[in-house]
């Protein structure tokens, strides 16, 4: 199909027929999505032909697909032709001029989360010339990584500096036609992260998006690819406990993890995007495809997520356990308050022999929120000796919220062991009163009990993140029980 496309140069020379308000020099395209939009994005980023072709194939596939509606989520239809798919990083003059111009509510939240002062400005989108400490920190950080041979850079940078790696691995875990949102992302993604850990290398530090400078605005269609070559180890932290300012409502990210023989990837997420106000107005729609493939023997992929933000969450970080003896893990805390809706869970696909998976999901609902755990455990015929353990617990705060558990279990090998435990409980009056009788405030008591409920997940998080996550939980549930 790409043979019919004019070459990139010809395209650029021709200008843009429909949709674009400005020429190539401009920074934003008019709303709408067609092949020209994709060519524009690819040209803007100076991408090689293979990537443009791939994007266009993805777009064609997307046209053929239907938006999925099986999740327990309710929202107004999304008009995909009413979204602008490219917007260059905003000029520094945009946004608040100083912290004095920032919404005091947001600042109060930063305060509670213990976000350092200089960071508050950056997160609130205040125009700052340099990112203070982060710049020097990030430089030392880059030196240490490159000494170890680790590649960690914005996706668009990797496309230029390591096109062979991108061409080799992109879409091998999440193909562009995987699902509606993955296809959309593949066609129009703007940036994200790329990580490559060479053979036998144990990444000398935890990789955090926090340190990935010059990627402050990765936009609504983020693409992340992490490849752990044989015998390597990496721990990756995505997100930040502090709420990020973002005007885009629709987010559809794709994360691909690939672990070769004896490799280990630990991927931790804290997601705290704007959930809408207390009446359910506004908020981010988050449709994410995250998948890891344990392609090699004895490989291991572990997802840990703490989800407190977004109005709508549609997200199932999964593991394809192809390599013999490979291990997949999913630890999740999903908090929904007010009118938030989350349909989240995981898929564990056991293909190789003696593959093992563990799922621990903790859902917390408050207010009018709806929280669904949706999980799939599949054991393929060749997965002799496969084992899965699933535990999903739901905690309800207040009487108008809902918790739902939808497990799909498919076992095609008679020697497999699959265990599923589920519980739903209300925060108990007895527990609350016990804490009050010991002098704790109602709010502290709730945080204590909910923190205890989430403990098995929090202890999977890297130390500092775990403390932040606990604080985040407290902020998210503020006023949840009157």
């Amino acid at each position, binding site marked *: 199909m790409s043979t019919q496309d004019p070459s990139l140069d010809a395209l650029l020379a021709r200008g843009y027929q429909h949709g674009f308000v400005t020429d190539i020099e401009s920074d934003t395209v008019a709303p709408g999505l067609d092949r020209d939009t994709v060519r524009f994005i690819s040209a803007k980023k100076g991408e090689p032909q293979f990537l443009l072709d791939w994007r266009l194939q993805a777009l064609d596939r997307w046209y053929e697909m239907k938006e999925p509606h099986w999740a327990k989520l309710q929202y107004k239809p999304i008009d995909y032709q009413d979204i602008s798919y490219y917007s260059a990083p905003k000029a520094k003059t945009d946004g608040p001029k100083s912290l004095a111009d920032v919404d005091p509510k947001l600042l109060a939240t930063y305060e509670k989360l213990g976000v350092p002062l200089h960071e508050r400005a950056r997160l609130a989108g205040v125009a700052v010339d340099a990112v203070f400490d982060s710049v020097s920190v990030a430089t030392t950080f880059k030196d240490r990584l490159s000494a170890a041979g680790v590649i960690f850079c914005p996706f668009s940078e990797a496309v230029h500096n390591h096109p062979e790696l991108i061409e080799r691995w992109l879409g091998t875990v999440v193909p562009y036609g995987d699902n509606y949102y993955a296809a959309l992302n593949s066609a129009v993604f703007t940036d994200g992260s790329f990580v490559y850990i060479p053979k036998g290398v144990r990444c000398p530090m935890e990789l955090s998006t926090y340190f990935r400078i010059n990627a402050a605005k990765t936009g609504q269609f983020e693409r992340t690819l992490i490849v752990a070559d044989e015998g390597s180890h990496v721990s990756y932290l995505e997100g930040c406990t502090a709420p990020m300012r973002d005007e885009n409502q629709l987010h559809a990210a794709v994360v691909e993890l690939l672990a070769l023989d004896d490799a280990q990837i630990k991927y931790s997420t804290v997601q705290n995007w704007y959930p809408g106000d207390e009446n359910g107005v506004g908020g981010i729609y988050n449709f994410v495809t995250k998948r890891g493939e344990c392609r090699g023997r004895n490989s291991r992929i572990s997802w840990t997520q703490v989800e407190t933000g977004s109005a709508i969450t549609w997200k199932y970080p999964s593991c394809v356990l192809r390599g013999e003896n490979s291990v997949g893990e999913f630890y999740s805390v999903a908090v929904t308050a007010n009118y938030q809706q989350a349909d989240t869970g995981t898929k564990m696909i056991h293909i190789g022999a003696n593959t093992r998976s563990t799922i621990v999901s903790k859902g917390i609902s408050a207010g009018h929120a709806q929280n669904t755990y949706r999980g799939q455990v599949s054991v393929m015929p060749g997965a002799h000796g496969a084992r899965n353990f699933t535990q999903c617990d739901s905690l309800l705060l207040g009487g108008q919220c809902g918790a739902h558990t939808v497990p799909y279990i498919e076992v095609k090998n008679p020697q497999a062991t699959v265990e599923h435990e589920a519980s739903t409980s209300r925060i108990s009056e007895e527990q609350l009163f*016990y804490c009050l009788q010991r*002098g704790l405030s109602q709010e502290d008591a709730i945080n204590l009990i909910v923190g*205890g409920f989430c403990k098995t997940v929090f202890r999977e998080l890297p130390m500092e993140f775990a403390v932040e996550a606990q604080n985040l939980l407290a902020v998210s549930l503020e006023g949840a029980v009157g």
Partner: protein
Amino acid sequence: MTTPLLSIRDLRVRIGDREVLQGINLDVPAGQVHAIMGPNGSGKSSLSHVLAGKPGYTVTGGSVLFKGQDLLALPAEERAREGMFLGFQYPVEIPGVNNAYLLRAALNAARRHRSEPEVDAFDFLALVKSRMQLMRMDESFLSRGVNEGFSGGEKKRNEILQMLVLEPSLAVLDETDSGLDIDALKVVAAGIQTLRAPDRAIVLVTHYQRLLDHVAPDQVHVLARGRIIKSGGPELALELERRGYDWLLDDAA
């Protein structure tokens, strides 16, 4: 005569339509131990719960003064911070929250209330370990979940440990002795004795004389059908042990 630490006047309480306390009068001076005994369903636990501010009870009349202030006007957590401790008959499990964490939070809540600095981790550990020794508890207990998987006896010991760390001015112990074997009873009794002090009072809610063998009460009250029908010295408990409650109930009827 000084004001009693706890002074209950004509306290009337309902759960739904049922009047569970029908005019309780009770004074507990500082420095004393009072035992409240009575048959099942007589209102003993209701009285303990109402004093601690448990939701679900409606006070329809009367007053409770604690250290001279209106106890019933305070929310449950403030009663606790003011030094009113309830030892629960059935301590609840709080999975995933470790004992040390809850206890330190409790201690610091009370200290903040008294405008004292919070206790640091080091001093706290020293304090709690010394009390645990007294209660013959293993140190591994500190990192276990609150009452999580505890035996009945361990739960009761934990209540007394919390009491010894918090050092309340009034401790109401609701059937702390039930479900304890002889050795555990002695340990728990020794813990209670440790708290006895001229500025503190203890109310023991119990069915049996056996705890009172180890913790001698100054006064014994019999609660039946939501009223205190008889009060006396320690000898009253012995008499109840011998004769049961029926003779009193008949008198009161």
